């Protein structure tokens, strides 16, 4: 068994990166390997926007991430990169006096330090 961390830096929907990451992650688990976590950074943080809506006949990415998390894969989002792009956790939103937040479970608001801690794996793959 090998351990993986996956870094998602590309925007969901606008690019294929998140879909590739998802398919790769599913294949990693299917082969009995472990995913230490998926870290969303740069435009990849938009994956954590709980308000994103796909038409019914397209892949529901937020749901796909939830299903992956249900299999024990931690989903971390860089707070700073997310805030820059309008994706805010509850504490971040409250601190700035905003009326609501759109970063919520199963996505976890983390810092880049979390990604650094995720480097202790056999392979890091970036999409």
């Amino acid at each position, binding site marked *: 068994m090998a351990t993986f961390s996956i870094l998602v830096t590309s925007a969901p929907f606008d690019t294929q990166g998140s879909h590739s990451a998802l398919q790769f992650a599913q294949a990693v688990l299917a082969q009995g390997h472990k995913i230490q976590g998926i870290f969303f950074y740069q435009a990849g943080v938009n994956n954590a926007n709980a308000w994103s809506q796909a038409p019914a006949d397209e892949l529901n990415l937020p749901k796909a991430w939830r299903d992956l998390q249900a299999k024990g894969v931690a989903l971390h989002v860089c707070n*700073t990169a997310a805030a820059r792009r309008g994706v805010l956790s509850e504490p971040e939103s409250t*601190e700035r*006096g*905003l009326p609501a937040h759109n970063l919520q479970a199963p996505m976890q608001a983390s810092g*880049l330090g979390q990604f650094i801690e995720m480097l202790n794996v056999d392979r890091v793959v970036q999409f």
Partner: protein
Amino acid sequence: MEQTIEFNGRSIAVDKAGYLLNSQDWDEALALHLADREGIDMTDAHWEVVLFVRHFYQEFNTSPAIRALVKAMEKAYGPEKGNSRYLQRLFPEGPAKQATKLAGLPKPAKCL
């Protein structure tokens, strides 16, 4: 959310945690006022760090994280002052966070 501090007849914009939104608003009198709000009695040692952090920002365009602050202080003033215990004693709520605030700089990123 934008809030303001009333100081010497001026309205200074700060964020919720009390960091200045415009570092150009800063002057030494305002720094004393900010220190007062933090419950810090500014000594020469405090001034040295606050001015150092401000200089660091002006030179590198980033607020130093604690580790970087310690290393930079060590390079400038030697190990006596370039160590986290010394800095922590001056700024009990975290030297990078508090000195940055008193220097009128943006809050260091949460990631750090």
